């Protein structure tokens, strides 16, 4: 089987087989953990292979499920951008599976945790690799349902159930809106395949659905407005951010890391797919005015979101809530960059997405080490723990300095790229970036001061266990290394990914090659 189709299938298979397996092994935690590590490890291998293949080929990779080609069947089409983000996702999921074991040592139901965890990974990879707008909807739902349930993991704690319920309600409204958008899109175009949609938008020919059925401009306008709203809910961009500061802290720390580092990227990635691959390049004047209006809205909301997130960081007492507001801030940057709409902006956005995923996951994980030791999320309870746990403190320092944008850590370089892009577009956006970064610096310094130099309120038995701190150390080294070799990473991995994502002609061409083989048996 092709590695493109295989990558999301592995975690799905492991997820479905886990409840039965755990009955067979009578819920032995070590076997369940080994099983989860095998599942995520195999997925990681598959993602690495996918990454190699995507970067050694000049074209996107295609897998046709059941041999049904576009637009009749659902195809998976992985370009370099998908493969890059899939690799980051799979790596983080594997490392966080190692971390989860010790973090959840006092909790029952590890098998259910991992069932949802593997389901979440399958959904994420499906979103990244799919070449079909409806399959994107299904995979977003798979991701979301697993995420809602994982937020409610501490089901006896009132705050996490309330936070999960809020997340589920707003998320369900968002995905339903995306479903309506799909209906409108299908009514206008007669297809839901990305390559086919893109071909129709750009006036190229495609088999089976050669021309749109209805009014393309109205259908695109309505569908893009609804879909963007849905994606902005998933990415937690102002004014749809209000679920995030409750949902992310309420989950167990490893899940917070996944949600803040990886799951929010889903919304931005889907937005990029629509705006750059389907509606990218030269458009007719009426369509391009629709896309332009959308870009302006995105830049505006992104800027508000960045400033709002930065300001709210200053007043938080709960350390995880503070980090959650920082996620809103960074999603604001990404959405601003996506709204600008140039290839340079996309490449800055992709690099920032990757860097933010690593650094934010690291920040949640290292904060999780302290929370695990202190048994509280309150910043004052964590005071003074830092000196007892040097590795976790080092990781916390690296993560927070990196997220603020201090050289030579990785986020500095992506912020630099973003700054250049913003300055070209409008100096106000660049000013937003600088102001929010400085505000965030103040907030992080407060956390760090408290954890490192604060006076302990009560005696906490502090010991570091290698599996949790080790994962933090690996990610901290990744932050430093990616930062040190940033120019190489950008020129060899990020720029080609952005170039391929905007090259809709190759995207369509590759799907066409397969579609030409379709025989309907007539």
């Amino acid at each position, binding site marked *: 089987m092709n590695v493109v189709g295989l990558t999301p299938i592995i975690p799905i298979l492991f997820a479905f087989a886990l409840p039965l397996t755990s009955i067979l092994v009578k819920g032995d935690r070590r076997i369940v953990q080994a099983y989860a590590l095998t599942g995520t490890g195999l997925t990681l291998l598959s993602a690495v292979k996918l990454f190699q293949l995507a970067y050694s080929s000049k074209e996107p990779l295609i897998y046709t499920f059941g041999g049904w080609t576009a637009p009749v069947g659902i195809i998976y089409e992985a370009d370099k951008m998908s493969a890059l983000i899939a690799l980051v996702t799979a790596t983080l999921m594997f490392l966080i599976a190692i971390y989860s074991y010790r973090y959840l040592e006092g909790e029952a139901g590890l098998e259910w945790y991992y069932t949802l965890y593997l389901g979440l990974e399958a959904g994420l990879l499906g979103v990244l690799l799919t070449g079909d707008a409806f399959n994107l909807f299904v995979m977003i739902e798979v991701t979301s349902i697993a995420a809602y349930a994982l937020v409610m993991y501490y089901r006896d704690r009132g*705050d996490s159930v309330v936070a999960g319920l809020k997340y589920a309600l707003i998320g*369900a409204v968002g995905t339903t809106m995306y479903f*309506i958008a799909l209906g409108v899109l299908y009514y206008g175009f007669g297809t839901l395949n990305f390559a086919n949609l893109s071909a129709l938008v750009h006036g190229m020919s495609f088999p089976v659905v050669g021309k749109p059925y209805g009014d393309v401009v109205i259908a695109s306008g309505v569908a893009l407005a609804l879909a963007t709203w849905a994606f902005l809910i998933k990415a937690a961009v102002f004014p749809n951010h209000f679920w995030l500061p409750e949902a992310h802290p309420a989950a167990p720390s490893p899940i917070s890391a996944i949600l803040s580092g990886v799951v929010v990227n889903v919304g931005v990635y889907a937005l990029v797919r629509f705006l750059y691959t389907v509606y990218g390049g030269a458009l007719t004047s009426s369509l391009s005015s629709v896309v332009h209006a959308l870009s302006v809205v995105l830049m505006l909301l992104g800027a508000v979101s960045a400033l709002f997130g930065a300001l709210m960081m200053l007043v938080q007492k709960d350390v995880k809530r503070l980090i959650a507001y920082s996620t809103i801030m960074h999603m604001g940057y990404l959405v601003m960059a996506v709204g600008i709409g140039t290839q340079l902006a996309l490449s800055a956005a992709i690099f920032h997405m990757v860097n933010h995923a690593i650094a934010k996951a690291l920040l949640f994980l290292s904060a999780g080490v302290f929370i695990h030791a202190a048994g509280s999320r309150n910043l004052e309870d964590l005071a003074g723990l830092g000196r007892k746990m040097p590795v976790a403190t080092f990781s916390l320092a690296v993560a927070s300095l990196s997220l603020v944008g201090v050289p030579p850590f990785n986020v500095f370089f992506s912020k630099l790229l973003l700054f250049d892009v913003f300055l070209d577009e409008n100096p106000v956006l660049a000013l937003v970036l600088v102001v929010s970064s400085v505000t965030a610096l103040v907030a992080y310094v407060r956390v760090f001061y408290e954890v490192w130099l604060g006076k302990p309120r009560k005696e906490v038995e502090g010991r570091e266990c290698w599996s949790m701190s080790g994962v933090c150390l690996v990610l901290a080294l990744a932050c430093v290394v990616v930062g040190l070799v940033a120019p190489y990473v950008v020129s060899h991995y990020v720029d080609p990914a952005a170039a391929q994502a905007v090259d809709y002609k190759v995207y369509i061409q590759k799907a066409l090659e397969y579609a030409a083989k379709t025989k309907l048996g007539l």
Partner: protein
Amino acid sequence: MISLLWSITIVSLLATLIISVYGIVAKPNLVKKLIALTIFGDTANVLVVLLGYRVIYPVKPPILPELSKRALGEFVKTAVDPLPQALVITAVVIGMAVNILIAFAVIQIYRIYGTLDVREVGKTLPELLRREEA
């Protein structure tokens, strides 16, 4: 006449969508929020089925009896578009999963707080957190 009925249907569906979103946002009772959410999902499904519908007589169910040019030609002339229905079936199944999860959360909130009113829950939440810390 038909076009009038057609527009009434579409307008009423859109009105239902807006009312159900209002219900999700404004109703304080969690069960009512869940009901409004199911109405929202179902209306979206009906809307998508409607988009694939065509006013043609005589209408036949979208079943292709055999794969030949003649049968296919007749199919295109008499059947409604089956693809939106296939999409809706998928969406219904997914919607059920989400609704069950939300229903579980509502029951769990009732067990913990003894109320289903979000205003009451909002008041009790800080007290619960303080008790945990103390």
